[in-house]
C-alpha cells in the first residue's frame, strides 16, 4: 500500500474497498476546493489544536529531564535539562516497572484477545442467524454500554471474590443444595476466587458492547450474495466465519485491538481494587503510586521529575501500538462509519 493510497482512505468512506473494487488511483470529486485563504485558516486552526494537544506532553517530557531542584523552581523552566536517563532509571527501578510491564502486557493482550473473540462471535450470531432472540440479545448487549465497570464495580467485585457465587445462589434457591446435603451429607460450597490473579484482571473487562456493535455494523455490510456463495461452495457457518468473515474484518480487528489495548493498559480502578499482591500489580496503579503526595515523599519536596519520567515510560507502549496500528485502525473505523 502506497502513501497515496493512505491519503485516499477518507475518500473510500462510501466504498468499502475490501468488498468492492480497489480504485486506488482515483481522486474523490467534490470536497476539494481551491480557496487559499480558507486553506490558510484551516491550517492555522489545525496548528493551534496541535499545540494545545502537544504542549502538555512537552511539559511531561521537560519535567522528566530536570533535577529535583530544577523541577520545583519558580518560574518553571521550559527548556530540557540533562537528568533524563537518571530520572528514567530512578522511576523504573524504584517501582519495579519491569514486572508491572509484563503484568500489564499480559492483561492487555488477554483483554484484547478476549474482547475480539467475544465481540466477533456475538455479532456473528446476531447478524447471520435468524432467530427470535436476535433483537432482545442485541438490545441487552447494547444496554451494557450504559453500565461501565465503574457502575457495576461492587457486584463485579463480589463475583470476582467467588466467581461461582451466582451458581451457588441458583443451587441454593432451587433446593438442589439442600437435596445434595440431605442425600449425601455433603455441603455444596462452590468457590473460585479471582482476586490477585490474571484471570481476575482480565475476565471482568472482556465483555464489550462497543466491539460487538462495531462487528455487527461491519457484518451487516457483507452482501447476502457472499453468504450464499459460501453456502453454495459448501462452507458451513464456522468455516464461513473463520475463512471469510475474519479475514475480511482484519481492519476491524486492528481498530478494536488498538482501542482496547489502550483501554486495558490504562485500567486503574479495577486492578487497584482486586490486586493486593504486588507481583500482580499493573503499570497504571504503580504510576499512581509515583505521584508525589505526603505519603510517598513523607513531606519532602515533591519529586515530579521522577513521576513524569514514570509517566513517559508508561505512555510508550500505547503510543507504539497506535503508531503501528494507525493505518489499519483508521480504515477499520471508517469502514463502519456508514
Amino acid at each position, binding site marked *: 500500500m502506497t502513501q497515496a493510497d493512505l491519503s485516499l482512505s477518507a475518500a473510500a468512506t462510501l466504498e468499502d474497498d475490501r468488498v468492492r*473494487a480497489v480504485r486506488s488511483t482515483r481522486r474523490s470529486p467534490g470536497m476539494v476546493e481551491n480557496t487559499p485563504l480558507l486553506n490558510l485558516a484551516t491550517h492555522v486552526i489545525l496548528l493551534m489544536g496541535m499545540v494545545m494537544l502537544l504542549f502538555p506532553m512537552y511539559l511531561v517530557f521537560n519535567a522528566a529531564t530536570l533535577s529535583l531542584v530544577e523541577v520545583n523552581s519558580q518560574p518553571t523552566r521550559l527548556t530540557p535539562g540533562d537528568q533524563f536517563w537518571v530520572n528514567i532509571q530512578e522511576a523504573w527501578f524504584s517501582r519495579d516497572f519491569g514486572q508491572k510491564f509484563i503484568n500489564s502486557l499480559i492483561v492487555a493482550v488477554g483483554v484484547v484477545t478476549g474482547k475480539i473473540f467475544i465481540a466477533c462471535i456475538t455479532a456473528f450470531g446476531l447478524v447471520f442467524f435468524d432467530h427470535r432472540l436476535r433483537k432482545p440479545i442485541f438490545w441487552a448487549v447494547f444496554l451494557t454500554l450504559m453500565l461501565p465497570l465503574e457502575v457495576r464495580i461492587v457486584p463485579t467485585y463480589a463475583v470476582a471474590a467467588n466467581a461461582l457465587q451466582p451458581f451457588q445462589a441458583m443451587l441454593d434457591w432451587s433446593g438442589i443444595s439442600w437435596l445434595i446435603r440431605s442425600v449425601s451429607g455433603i455441603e455444596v460450597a462452590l468457590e473460585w476466587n479471582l482476586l490477585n490473579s490474571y484471570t481476575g484482571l482480565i475476565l471482568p473487562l472482556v465483555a464489550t458492547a462497543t466491539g460487538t456493535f462495531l462487528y455487527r455494523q461491519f457484518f451487516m455490510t457483507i452482501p447476502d*450474495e457472499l453468504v*450464499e456463495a459460501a*453456502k453454495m*461452495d459448501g462452507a458451513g457457518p464456522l468455516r464461513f466465519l473463520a475463512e471469510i468473515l475474519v479475514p*475480511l474484518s482484519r481492519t476491524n480487528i486492528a481498530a478494536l485491538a488498538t482501542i482496547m489495548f489502550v483501554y486495558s493498559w490504562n485500567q486503574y480502578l479495577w486492578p487497584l481494587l482486586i490486586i493486593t499482591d504486588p507481583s500482580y500489580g499493573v503499570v497504571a496503579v504503580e504510576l499512581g503510586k509515583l505521584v508525589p503526595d505526603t505519603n510517598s515523599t513523607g513531606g519532602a519536596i515533591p519529586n515530579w521529575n521522577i513521576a513524569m519520567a514514570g509517566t513517559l515510560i508508561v505512555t510508550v507502549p500505547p503510543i507504539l501500538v497506535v503508531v503501528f496500528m494507525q493505518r489499519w485502525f483508521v480504515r477499520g473505523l471508517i469502514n463502519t462509519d456508514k
Partner: protein
Amino acid sequence: MAKIDIRKVRKMYGKDEVIHGVDLRINKGEFVVILGPSGCGKSTLLRMIAGLEDISGGEIAIGGTVVNNLEPRQRGCAMVFQNYALYPHMTVAENIGYALKVAGMKKSDRLVKVAAVARSVGLEEFLDRKPGQLSGGQRQRVAMARAIIREPKVFLFDEPLSNLDAKLRVQMRHEIRRIHNRIKATSVFVTHDQHEGMTLADRMVIMNKGTIDQVGTPEDVYDRPATTYVAGFIGSPAMNFLDGQVDYDRGGVVLGDGTVMRLAKMPQVVNGTMVQLGLRPETLGLAGAGRGALDVTFEFAEELGSGRLYHVRHEDIPLTVMMAEKHRFTEGDRLSLVVNDATLHLFDAATGKRIEMTVMDRVKETA
C-alpha cells in the same frame, strides 16, 4: 449432469404466495432460460432449486432425488450470482478453488484443477490477483470458473450478465454458450433480458406473476406465443394489439370502427368471440391511404440504422411498424397498414390465451 423436476412448487412469504404451483421438467444437459420481468418469481424459483430459499409447497428433484430438505452443498448445484459474489480477500486462484478446499481436496491436486479451469475461461494470467483488481468481465469469468470447477450436476445463473455493459454482455453470452456446448451441464439461467433468453436457450420458460405462461424453444415462443402476455413480452419492438370480434360472415375480425381484418385461416372459436389481434411490427408495412388493410395516421419515426420504426395511429390506438425501407412521411400523413394475414396472432380477449387457426374454416361457420 442431471434432470430437474419441479412439481407443484409454491413459495409463500408469510401469507403472500409469490409462486403458485409451478410444474417444470428440465432435461439432462439442457440450457433452460427462465424469463420474466422483475418480481415474477423467476429468481425465487432458481433460489429454491439452489437451496437458498425454502420450498413452501410441492417438491423439487434433481437427478431423481427430492432435494427439498437438502442443504445447498448437498444438491450438487453451482451458482453464478449477479454481483459475482467473489471473496474479496482471496486471489482468483483461491476463489476458484475454494469449493474444492472446503471439500477437502489436497492443495497440489487443487492447484492443477484450478489452473486447468482458469485456462479454459482465459484467466491463467490473473490467478494471483484479487477480485478488486479485475474488470467486470474478468470477475464474471472467475464466477463462472468457480462454478465449473465443481463439476456440478446443475448450473444456476441468476442474472449473471446484468452488471456488464452492453458489449461485454454479448461477449459473455457467447462465452456461456460455448462453455455449455463444451461441458453440457444442465443449466438454468434467469434473466429479464429477452435477447439473452432467445440467444442462449434451448428452451425458454416465460414466467408471469408467479406462474409459468409458456415453455418452449425460442422459435416456438416467438412464432406461437401462448398468451397475450408472452406475445407482448417477447419480440422487440413489442407486438401491436387490436381489439375485435370474430365474424365468419365477413371473413375475419371486425374492429371497433367496423374495419374488417381478413384472416387467411379461420380460428377455432365460435362466431362472435371477442378477440385480440396481435401484429408484430416487423411483419407490417405501410402504403398510401386506402391501399392496405387498415387506415392509419403517421406520427413520427425512429431511426434504427438498419431500418426505421414508424409510429402510427389507428383511431386512438398507437401502432408500430418496422421496415427496412426508409420513407419520409410527415406528421398527420394518411397511410394504410399492409398486413400479411399469415403472420397474424389471435388471442381470446377474455382469457388472453392463444387461439389456433386452421384452414378447415367453413366447417365452423356452418356449424
